């Protein structure tokens, strides 16, 4: 049903429509409204056969999720930033044990210094943990991705992070068509675990694996992650067939036909970029956009195909590797090896700094004129940092 609703509420309702059996989360800005919404649905009886557990930390949240999922329950949790790090040990454990948990990450910067606003440093910090990472462009996609995530997770036996920009999406009110429980039931069958804790058929889950087998276990997980690329596409196609809209999948191209320059980005900034690209195209520039939905697994082939024919790719990132540079850039560079494409990195929106059409436009025009560095921080206060660097280097 089409509603004008807060992003968090849309997600809560979409998750509820999936009939989760255990929800366990610890509050952290900006995820709180999602969990509050679900808590109400369970408490007032709207969401039945669901246990809502108020845990004492994010580490506990993921741990409760592990226990619940291993017992065959469809399980949900949500977090951001510091909370994601606090559960890091458990995140690896969940994927290592092949538990199809779905978790919302309301993307928020990692401190110190403490910052509650949006960027991608949190989910990016966990890119190697063996979870799928799908990024929502808008709240419609945020809602839809959770539904698709359960199907992908349960069919592949891999947990999924649905990443949505904190505040920018979670706290934005926009139109969302939220599927009903009945509609979701048609799309998402009941959870059939590959292995489960059952006194009638006892198994030991979580054994200690030594040097003689560990590599093989990890190799198989790696292959399964790669196999999920096809699954992500399949599920998105099925979703489109049933619900009539294109959300999820690996990536979406916008006006890239014949584009000389292509910008690649993740999350809500894609919306803003569409407006910028339209403006620039009208002004005679040759520029297009690739919005990446699946960051993990990284769809190397699909990205390569999407960027084929361009002269230049600009990767807009909301996180970076301190001392090194872009993160997504590294994967993109590998995808376009040998194509003769130039790649530029634009770090923007860190700690919630607004990414404006004006600033983007200004940078892109310069970039298309080969007037920018390989790595740029958008809207950097150069006077201040130059002064500070002089002081800093004098101390060294």
């Amino acid at each position, binding site marked *: 049903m089409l509603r004008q609703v807060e992003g968090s509420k849309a997600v809560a309702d979409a998750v509820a429509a999936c009939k989760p059996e255990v929800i366990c989360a610890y509050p952290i800005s900006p995820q709180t409204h999602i969990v509050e919404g679900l808590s109400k649905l369970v408490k007032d009886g709207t969401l039945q056969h669901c246990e809502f557990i108020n845990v004492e930390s994010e580490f506990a949240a993921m741990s409760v999720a592990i226990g619940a999922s291993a017992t065959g329950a469809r399980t949900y949790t949500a977090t951001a930033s510091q909370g994601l790090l606090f559960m890091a040990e458990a995140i690896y454990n969940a994927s290592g044990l092949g538990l199809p948990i779905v978790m919302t990450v309301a993307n928020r910067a990692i401190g110190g210094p403490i910052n509650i606003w949006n960027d991608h440093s949190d989910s990016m910090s966990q890119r190697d943990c063996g979870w799928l990472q799908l990024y929502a462009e808008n709240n419609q996609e945020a809602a839809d991705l959770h539904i698709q995530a359960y199907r992908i997770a349960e069919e592949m036996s891999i947990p999924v992070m649905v990443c949505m920009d904190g505040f920018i999406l979670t706290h934005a009110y926009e139109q969302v068509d939220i599927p009903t429980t009945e509609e979701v039931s048609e799309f998402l069958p009941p959870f059939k675990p590959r292995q489960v804790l059952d006194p009638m058929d006892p198994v030991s889950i979580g054994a200690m694996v030594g040097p003689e087998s560990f590599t093989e276990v990890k190799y198989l997980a790696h292959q399964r992650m790669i196999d999920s690329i096809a699954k992500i596409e399949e599920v998105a196609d099925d979703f489109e067939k049933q619900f009539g809209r294109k959300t999820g999948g690996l990536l979406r191209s916008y006006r890239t036909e014949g584009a000389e320059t292509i910008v690649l980005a993740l999350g809500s900034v894609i919306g803003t970029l569409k407006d910028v690209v339209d403006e620039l195209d009208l002004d005679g520039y040759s520029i297009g956009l690739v919005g990446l939905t699946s960051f993990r697994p990284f769809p190397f082939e699909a990205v390569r195909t999407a960027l084929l024919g361009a002269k230049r790719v600009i990767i807009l990132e909301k996180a970076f590797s301190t001392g090194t540079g872009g993160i997504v850039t590294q994967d993109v560079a590998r995808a376009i090896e040998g194509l003769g494409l130039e790649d530029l990195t634009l770090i923007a929106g860190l700690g*919630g700094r607004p990414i404006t059409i004006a600033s983007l436009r200004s940078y892109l025009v310069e970039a298309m004129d080969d007037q920018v560095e390989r790595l740029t921080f958008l809207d950097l206060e150069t006077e201040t940092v130059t002064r500070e660097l002089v002081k800093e280097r004098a101390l060294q």
Partner: protein
Amino acid sequence: MFQVRIHGRGGQGVVTAAELLAVAVFDERRHAQAFPSFGSERTGAPVVAYCRISDHEIRAREPIMEPDALIIQDSSLIKQIDVFSGLKTGGFVIINSNESAEDLQLATKILVPHTTAILPATELAMIHLGRPVPNAVLLGAFSALTGLVSLQAVTNAIAEKFKPKIAAGNVAAATAAYEYVMNQVAAHA
């Protein structure tokens, strides 16, 4: 696309105002995007919220730097921050105050009579609602001044959001504000 920026202080329901406006716009089958400025809110601190209105899908998410309309829920902010920053020429201004434009010391170039409304929204709220919360009230004024959204849509949004008793008070106050501004506009015509 029509862009509205709402200024107020924490605790005055600025974010709710943007939400209500978005729901009212949706009620009339148009697209709306509303979001807060995400400051570290505390009661009394300056707060900003935004609402974009369009017939088409709204994609950009930057803060509204060049508003077509401003709603100022607390006139004490005028001296404190540059609430009028970026206001488009001919842009609408709605100010919650029981003072006059002269008393508020507002530049005449900003305030053009038929695109400006100054009204005692807090007083109206006290009369109809019993609480000094002017957010929904000012949306009635917005409807009257801009015509961008009908009073009916505004009151529908209010009814959807609040419990019946509070909704009734807000509807009454918003309607009173609507009439107040309509009269003001007529007087200037």
